[in-house]
């Protein structure tokens, strides 16, 4: 048994190395945060892998400049009118199975199909994944005896199967009975894809509703709507009001000479208004930002209007007036309070921060735009006119801004027609910077 372990360990090590090398070059398409945890759990048992995607690189690693055709690429070009939808994808897969009775090169084809799924907009379609799994020949890769099960039986095929499941996982697709049936037919019960399947079944149900602040699956395309959503997402107070201070000028009508008017959308709750009204005009308030906020695969930037925390000696202690409640005493006149023995709270270090008076999202992050926001705020907050406002705008918005100028204006349309590799490259740059 120790011998077997040693072999597994060696394999794990080699895979680990492969993983380290491959992270530099490839990156799995992350959806949101959720897949992280199951991924980690998955890795822990098989072997210690870094966060490498299971989709191996295509045989020809040179990418970007000249794209060599992957095998079977032509199958995906056959669509007569260039429409890329579910039907044409299914057609391509069916063509493969029809013309390739012996299923030669099916592993390559499945990897290719997996990469193509986004383009066809079927990456969240369970039926398609089942269709892909269906390409595998049945019964061939099932382990026949105990040694088959101990050693990785048909490793390439099993990894391919795992890759399909992995992509499902990344897109949050829950496998169903049919998937299970296919996997048992192809790889048998005691196989790694089956293990992955079982784990997905276990954890997906648990993680499905784990996010207490769910983001809708399809984000609005309009930047104004998106900003509205993001602001609501950040603001805990339900009575807060979203105000559109400036609508974006439509880009078609204006040419480059016109100064474009970026959108400015702000949110403020009644409590924040009251706090701003009570703010001492002697202390300045600050406009800070931009800070980034990720909504699924989109990054938006926001600014806040905040003040510094008052020094403790200037804070007003709220005291209970003597004659307040007509019916019962509001405080007890006892000589002792709750002592440290009776303090059952957890020991939490709380960092007190100054109040935030408003949040805004604008199309541009320059001072002129934000000054317009402050002007708009003055209509509802008259005291703001008397308080000095300091703009503290950071040139770069954290780690992401340096390399991703393209993301500054978040892409309004899903990256259709863009190759997966390009996406990967971009992410890879981000992660390096």
């Amino acid at each position: 048994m120790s011998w077997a372990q040693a072999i597994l360990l060696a394999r794990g090590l080699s895979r680990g190395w492969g993983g380290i090398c491959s992270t530099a070059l490839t990156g799995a398409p992350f959806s949101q945060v959720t897949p992280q945890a199951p991924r980690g759990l998955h890795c822990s048992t098989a072997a210690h892998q870094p966060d490498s995607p299971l989709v191996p690189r295509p045989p020809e690693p040179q990418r970007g400049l000249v794209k060599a055709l992957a095998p079977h690429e032509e199958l995906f070009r056959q669509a007569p009118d260039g429409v890329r939808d579910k039907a044409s994808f299914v057609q391509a897969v069916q063509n493969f199975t029809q013309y390739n009775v012996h299923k030669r090169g099916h592993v390559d084809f499945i990897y290719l199909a997996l990469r193509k799924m986004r383009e066809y907009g079927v990456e969240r379609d369970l039926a398609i994944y089942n269709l892909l799994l269906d390409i595998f020949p049945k019964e061939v890769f099932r382990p026949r005896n105990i040694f088959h099960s101990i050693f990785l039986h048909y490793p390439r095929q099993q990894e391919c199967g795992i890759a399909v499941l992995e992509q499902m996982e990344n897109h949050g697709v829950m496998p169903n009975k049919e998937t299970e049936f296919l996997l048992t037919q192809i790889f048998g019960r005691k196989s790694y894809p089956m293990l992955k399947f079982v784990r997905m079944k276990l954890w997906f149900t648990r993680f499905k509703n784990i996010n207490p602040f769910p983001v809708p699956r399809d984000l609005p395309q309009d930047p104004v709507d998106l900003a509205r959503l993001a602001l609501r997402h950040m603001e805990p107070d339900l009575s807060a009001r979203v105000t559109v201070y400036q609508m974006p000028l439509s880009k078609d009508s204006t040419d480059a000479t016109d100064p474009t008017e970026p959108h400015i959308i702000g949110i403020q709750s009644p409590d924040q208004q009251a706090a701003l009204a009570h703010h001492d005009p002697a202390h300045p308030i600050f406009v800070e930002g931009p800070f980034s906020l990720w909504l699924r695969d989109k990054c938006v930037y926001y600014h806040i209007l905040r003040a510094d925390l008052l020094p403790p000696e200037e804070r007003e202690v709220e005291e209970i007036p003597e004659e307040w409640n007509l019916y019962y005493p509001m405080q007890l006149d006892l000589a002792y309070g709750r002592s440290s023995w009776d303090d059952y709270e957890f020991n939490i270090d709380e960092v007190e921060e100054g109040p935030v008076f408003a949040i805004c999202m604008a199309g541009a992050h320059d001072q002129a735009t934000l000054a317009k926001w402050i002007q708009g705020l003055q209509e509802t907050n008259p005291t703001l006119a008397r308080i000095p406002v300091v703009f503290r705008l950071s040139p770069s918005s954290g780690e992401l801004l340096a390399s991703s100028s393209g993301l500054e204006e978040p892409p309004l349309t899903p990256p259709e027609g863009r190759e997966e590799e390009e996406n990967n490259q971009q992410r890879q740059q981000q992660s390096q910077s």
Partner: protein
Amino acid sequence: MSGCGLFLRSAAAARLGRARVAFTASRRPLRTSPPSQAFAKELFLGKIEKKEVFPFPEVSQDELNEINQFVGPVEKFFTEEVDSQKIDREGKIPNETLEKLKSLGLFGMQVPEEYGGLGLSNTMYARLGEIISLDCSIAVTLAAHQAIGLKGIILAGSEEQKARYLPKLASGEHVAAFCLTEPASGSDAASIRTRATLSEDKKHYVLNGSKVWITNGGLASVFTVFAKTEVVDSNGSVKDKVTAFIVERDFGGITSGKPEDKLGIRGSNTCEVHFENTRVPVENVLGEVGGGFKVAMNILNSGRFSMGSAVAGMLKKLIEMTAEYACTRKQFNRNLSEFGLIQEKFALMAQKAYVMESMAYLTAGMLDQPGFPDCSIEAAMVKVFSSEAAWQCVSEALQVLGGSGYMRDYPYERILRDSRILLIFEGTNEILRMYIALTGLQHAGRILTARVKQLKQGNVTTIMETVSQRVRDSLGRTVDLGLTGKLGAVHPSMEDSAHKLEQNVHDFSRTVETLLLRFGKTIVEEQLVLKRVANILINLYGMTAVLSRASRSIRVGLQNHDHEVLLANIFCTEAYYQNLFALSQLDKSDQRRQERRTPRSSEHWHPTPTVLTWLSPPAVGMTKWLLQQILRKISMN
């Protein structure tokens, strides 16, 4: 420290005695009124002040005759001449009814005789309340007039004010109203917006503002109004303080809105009252300038006890009507009254009515004792208990009546609608629970402070005393507060119930102590805890009241006293288990917290948290062992 260690019992007694002595000694010089008799407050310390509640207060024969003189004609009037249904439909009490009420003297029941009132004692007032409440609209109108409207003049008015206003108010020529509530201010005195400013010649206050939901607002010609005035402090700063004024409608600038359309008590007049530049002479300030808060509190606290008897009167009438129905309606050849589930409802109604009546008259009796006893907690308890019982009983009565209870042709649905207001006005029950619990805890806290301090400083004797007390409690010592036995106040037929009461009182005082230890001042914020404390106290008071009353009934040999004993025993048993449940809820959270802090101790033996959390587990074991040895020695002796 003579009673250290070995003589635990005497030490405990001595300690209590010392605390009491220290307490009275420290407070006596401050006291201006005769010693306040606080039965409910003492319950927080695990003591039953027997002489306050045993024997049940009685009225003298003269008084009884007097009451009967009044009660006869009033009862006749209410049963024969008052048409409650018509009052409810039309939303107005007819003028001739009001005139008759005035001629009966019902507008001045508690006004002293020298000012033309009836000068009834609290007990007699409560008795009359039973009859008046046969029509809730009239009862509310009268209560708004005299329980709160003119009460301010009786309690805080000067001689001139009394002489000027009370005679006309007592005769009913003038109707009074109490103007406190504002759109933005219910129980929050700080947000009162009505303002009174002193005129330049310093002879008038100019009153501006509006009040809402004023009962009798449309009828009244004398208002007790609370408004903010500027008061110069002792240190020279100007502050806004509440001041009470007597305002006549003739002062001008007073307008009342149209009567509100209400769910129940539709015959009573409720409306907004607006004051616009009303000029009030300086002489009409009630009490001191800036002292309106105290006036308002006193008025509100004093007016509540009568609700118990009033509700009981109404309930007795309702039981009568319902019983008639249940005894005549036949289903399956049997009267409804023969079915167990129906009988249960009647038992419930009879029990609640009996308890609230006992509580109300016990409180009235306490109030009638010489001096000015402070029974505001008791009065609040009567109010909470009776209003909730009323709602429950009326609902059960409707259930007995089935469909006819739901029809507008019958009086039952009106009674249901009318009784809903009881839980809301005169301080909502929630707010009164806070009052009951916090006032009691304040009292208990003062006395326990000294002991708690010693505990926290680690005074060995105090710790030993406390621990030994806990151990004795945990060994199941029966509590004896002296209610039963040879010279006991409670009749032997209710011995069990008396023991239950004693047990509850004892446990309650322990819980109060733990709660104070646990929360200290912050207990004000623990409303759910306070609610349970108040519920337990209300039950304890109810138990005391019925035990006292039933004991008296047996000893005097009243008719049907066996029924009273039955009702008392049923109530005591129920209340006992309710209390146990509430106490366990209050303790349980403590235990859970305790376990979280010291996960090592798997045993459930846990004396006061404060004591044992200092001691390491071996020390705890040692202490336990030592105490057991000591106790064994004591028991062998």
